């Protein structure tokens, strides 16, 4: 199967290609130097933008938490439903679309790789069942390790190597991809109705602090040579004044970074960049964070942008969700996953006229625009927490056009308008930078060598958008930009055209990527360990791991660890 994308304006930041008119050849699912032009299927992309397939570093799309959210909110689905077609299945959507619909909608926007963060290890089988049913995209998932009892115990006793062996086993057992840390220490404390309020609070019963957990897992990450850094949801998330915690979290691993390689990824940073003492005096804390990130190379961020809509918030951060439930008085699901993590779900409506929500909107965009290096910040909405992923085209328009930002800002709460930094920011991203924040940067941060670029040997994942960068000025015609990114002209997955003009043409199963971490001396299976599973887990040791047979399309990646 050969394919030739002709005459498009190619934006491929990882290879430094900035809008040059060129052809991209794909053979057997991979980008190649050239193909037989007579035999190959040709796609005329003249006057269109060609980018690598989109990569999303943080989007809650599968797992028990997401599914509970679906069950909790029938009112979220009833106005947004898709009928089946000859190739697609039916489904319902909006803030938490059903699994198949999630795949289709990502594909329609030109995305080909998505990462599901926050999987409680105990719920790994459920998560993979749902990932199997999410077609059109390659995907991976991060197990929650920040409050796993084995991690806490080994770090408390200072045994980093043993901790690393356990983490290696767990990543392999749950078919995970990276180390996810959510409110380190706080989730364990939540099991007892408490939380931790700073990096140096003691976690009850474990003689350890959040700082030690983050530093310990950062060292483990390095020892195991994992492709992605630790993926951190900070302490004190969603509380006024928490930008200090975010800064401290970045600082606490400063000395662990080697060279210019990132050591920590702060996810949905918008929720961790609040200044002020309470909700009344809350304001944007983006400046100190952006300054810090501009001067240090060991941090990457993602935006966690909010959009004004009714959505569903869901995190493993149980105490935060409890606070949110108190604020909204709406429905709430709370869950304590034994020995591992917690979870909470609360529906939330972001409103323009609400001061705090309006400031949050401004914070997300300020972060993206004030961080000078677009390789350090990526575009997400922390789907569905800040808004559904289907609102990405709107965010792209805001990033590309000052006019679009002004138009949106004008409709906000007046006090929030007067405090926003946005009017003073002139920066407008071009297509090159948009390609960086939506695919290339994310692929590089994730260590995905074959994704996010169109060089020789890359996966044949290509997105083509019907917008002419020579004729359309995105800064003025932001509505055209929005329309183009909403419905990709073509989405190509593994060298096959799967979407044309926003319609799904072909169903493909995406692969599930996971890390096969090889340690020189694997953790032994002692009777003691089995006994602990018997005592503290509802699942026996033998039934805990997810077998490779559970994945319909498995794509293991071998990593050689230092321990």
């Amino acid at each position, binding site marked *: 199967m050969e394919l030739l994308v002709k005459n498009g304006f190619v934006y491929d930041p990882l290879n430094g290609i900035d809008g040059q008119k060129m052809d991209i050849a794909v053979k057997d699912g991979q980008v190649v130097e050239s193909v037989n032009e007579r035999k190959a299927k040709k796609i005329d992309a003249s006057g269109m933008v060609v980018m690598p397939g989109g990569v999303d570093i943080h989007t809650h799309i599968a797992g028990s938490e997401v599914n509970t959210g679906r069950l*909790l*909110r*029938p*009112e*979220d689905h*009833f106005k947004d439903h898709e009928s089946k077609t000859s190739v697609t299945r039916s489904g319902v959507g909006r803030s938490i679309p059903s699994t198949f619909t999630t795949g289709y909608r990502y594909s329609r926007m030109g995305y080909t790789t998505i990462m599901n963060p926050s999987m409680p290890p105990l719920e790994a089988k459920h998560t993979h069942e749902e990932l199997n049913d999410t077609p059109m995209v390659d995907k991976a998932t991060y197990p929650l390790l920040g409050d796993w009892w084995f991690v806490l115990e080994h770090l408390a006793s200072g045994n980093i190597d043993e901790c690393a062996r356990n983490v290696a086993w767990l990543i392999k057992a749950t078919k995970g991809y990276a180390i996810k840390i959510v409110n380190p220490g706080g989730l364990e404390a939540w099991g007892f109705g408490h939380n931790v309020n700073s990096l140096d609070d003691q976690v009850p019963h474990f003689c350890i602090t959040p700082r030690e957990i983050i530093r310990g897992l950062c060292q483990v990450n390095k020892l195991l040579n994992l492709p992605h850094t630790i993926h951190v949801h900070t302490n004190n998330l969603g509380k006024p004044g928490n930008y200090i915690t975010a800064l401290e979290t970045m600082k606490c691993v400063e000395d662990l970074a080697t060279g210019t390689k990132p050591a920590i990824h702060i996810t949905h940073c918008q929720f961790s960049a609040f200044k002020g003492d309470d909700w009344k005096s809350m304001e944007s804390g983006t400046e100190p964070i952006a300054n810090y990130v501009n001067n240090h190379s060991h941090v990457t961020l993602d935006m966690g942008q909010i959009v004004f809509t009714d959505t569903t918030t869901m995190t493993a951060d149980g105490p935060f969700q409890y606070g949110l439930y108190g604020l909204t008085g*709406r*429905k709430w699901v709370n869950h304590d996953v034994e020995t591992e993590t917690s979870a909470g779900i609360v529906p939330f409506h972001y409103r323009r006229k609400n001061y705090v929500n309006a400031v949050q909107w401004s914070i997300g965009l300020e972060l993206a625009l004030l961080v000078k290096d677009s390789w350090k910040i990526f575009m997400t909405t922390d789907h569905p927490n800040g808004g559904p992923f289907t609102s990405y085209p709107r965010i792209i328009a805001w990033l590309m056009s000052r006019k679009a930002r002004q138009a949106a800002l004008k409709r906000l709460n007046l006090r929030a308008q007067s405090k926003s930094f946005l009017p003073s920011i002139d920066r407008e991203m071009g297509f090159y930078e948009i390609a960086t924040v939506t695919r290339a940067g994310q692929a590089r941060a994730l260590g995905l060598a074959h994704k996010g670029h169109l060089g020789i040997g890359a996966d044949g994942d290509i997105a083509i958008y019907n917008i002419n960068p020579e004729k359309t000025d995105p800064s003025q015609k932001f509505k055209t930009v929005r329309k183009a990114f909403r419905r990709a002209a073509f989405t190509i997955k593994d060298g096959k055209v799967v979407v044309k003009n926003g319609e799904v043409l072909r169903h493909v199963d995406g692969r599930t990527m996971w890390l096969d971490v090889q340690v020189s001396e694997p953790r032994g299976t002692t009777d003691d360990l089995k006994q602990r599973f018997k005592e503290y887990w509802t699942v026996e040791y033998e039934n805990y791991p997810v077998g490779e047979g559970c994945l319909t399309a498995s794509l293991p990646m071998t990593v050689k660890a230092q321990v």
Partner: protein
Amino acid sequence: MIELVPNREFRLPITAECISPNVFEEKTLPEIEALKVWEGNKQKTLGGIFKIAESGADNQQKNNTITIHGDVTEVRGIGSYMKNGEIVIHGNVGLYLGVEMHGGKITVYGNTGGWAGSMMKNGTIEIHGNVGDYLASPYRGSTKGMRGGRIVVHGNAGNEAGAYMKHGVIKILGSAGQFLGLRMREGTIYVKNGCEDRAGACMSGGKIVIGGAVESILPSFTIDSIKKKAKVEEGEDAEGPFYVFLGDLAENGNGKLYVSKTSNPHLGSYEKFI
């Protein structure tokens, strides 16, 4: 004026949100006949299941009134999102009558299914029969209750009538089921006869007037006073005397629950707390 008569007896549920004056107006008869509806999992045209006739005056808004003759118990969503005009139904009608109605009038000479007037914002619905459960209540899981308008039911209502109500008037001239005015925030519900248990559960505001017998009052309500009459709407009072309860205190609520004194002698023990 458009007249609809079912072609046959419907056996499968039909979703026909297109039966609304706002959809019909400015359309010619063939266009109306070509409107799409779902019967079970098959898509049909409106003309395929109804005999449609045009009659009456030839002024501009000629299709602003829709009359349905016959049993349409299986037809759902009639009058959804309508903004003006009128629908008259001579027969029983199915679920979701007048969902998110913004204005206009619906009259039913028969019974209706559940969720009649669900999430309505304005307009009038008059039903000369009984209504099913969830009268004027929002869709499952949603908190968008009735925002305004007026519903009059000449028969009985099922459970959870007026849940999450935020504004407007509901008059039930028969009796009501359980959880009358569940979680209501504002507005008025009047029930001429009695109602089943748990009236006003979780209400945080608004007014419920019950002119008949109730078995008990929720323990999270406190008695406030006895009043001679209760105002139902402008120019209409219900004659008492009524016990006035405040609640639901479990939700820090400030709703008023009027319960007839004469029909409920067993509530007399509350009087000593006034």
